[in-house]
């Protein structure tokens, strides 16, 4: 029993140590890559973002050309918040836009919009 307890505490401190040594960021990066993949999946999914209906996006096929190609996004949107706002509700920039009001019309949840916006910002 005591042995097990000791092994447990040792393991715990090793884990803590690894944490201090900066391994956590690696784990976060893995999460980050997963989230970007999720964001891309949502953006391409016809039932969700379906952004390809109107925008060319690297890696997407049969894209439409109603809106501008989504590239060099950090140059066009230095502010992530502005990009997210555009995706959440494009009507704030153009009241008559054809682009879907994804947030207010609940086409995607807030969380899904975050994932899409983060992915788009990397393009």
């Amino acid at each position, binding site marked *: 029993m005591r042995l097990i307890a000791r092994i447990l505490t040792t393991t715990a401190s090793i884990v803590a140590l690894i944490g201090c040594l900066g391994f956590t960021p690696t784990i976060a990066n893995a999460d980050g890559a997963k989230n970007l993949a999720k964001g891309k999946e949502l953006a391409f999914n016809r039932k969700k973002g379906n952004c*390809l*209906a*109107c925008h060319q996006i690297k890696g997407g096929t*049969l*894209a*439409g*050309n*109603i809106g501008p190609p989504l590239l060099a996004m950090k140059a066009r949107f230095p502010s992530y918040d502005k990009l997210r706002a555009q995706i959440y509700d494009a009507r704030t920039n153009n009241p008559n836009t*054809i682009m*879907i*009001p994804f947030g207010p*019309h*609940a*086409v995607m949840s807030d969380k899904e919009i975050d994932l899409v916006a983060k992915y788009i910002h990397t393009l």
Partner: protein
Amino acid sequence: MKKIATVLSALLIAATPFAGQATPDDDLEAFRSYYVKQFPEVPMNDFVNGVYALDAASREQWEEFEEFPSYEIAIDNGEEKFHNKFANGKSYVSCFPQYKKGIKQNYPYFDIDSGKVVTLESAINKCRSDNGEKPLKWKKGAIADISAYIASLSRGHKINIKVPNNAKAIAAYNRGKKHFYAKRGQLNMACADCHYHYAGSKIRADILSPALGHTSGFPVYRNKWAGMGTLHRRYAGCNKQVRAKPFKAQSDEYKALEYFHTYMSNGLEINGPSQRK
């Protein structure tokens, strides 16, 4: 200051399409010149060919289809049904005495007595009920065949829709116009978004056809349907694409839309039925 405000609001009203100042004629003029500006290379009467007026590649494929068109059999079926006798011994000929000369170009029209828009399909079913027959289903099948036959005899005639100076007629026209320009559905898009503002652009792999000339080719044989369909079947499909609840075929709403939509094509030639992908 107050004067400026009045002037401003007057200007605003003039700028909104539903303010009621613009007559159907003004609308038609503006509508047409927009497409002429957008597509200067397209001859006016070619707009009746929808997306094939704009895109050479899909036009070639379509012309091949049109050599042995799938709607041919619908015309034949329609002809047979049109001349078949009802139980009372009459046929559709009694309701459409001018059919041989071509009549499709006059539909839909506004009937002042009933205060309603009369579409060709609604007239077909009215003919049935007036003669003691059960109505046909609205979107496909026999009604589309009969409509195809009548359209085929009307080819080459210029669309000639009238909006009489009658409050209800103008209201119906304006209702259709409003439907055309209003955002709808979860995706929040108007007919005008796709078929006016972005006509000629690609939505995914599909080129968006201009609304000018839209109605002239109906009913259509659509490969996707593997069969014939009426204009209202297409309206329902386009409403559903934007996740809006479609209206019923031949509802007052779609009749009004057809009224406005066809009026905008006045002067173009009937070329229905046609083949679409």
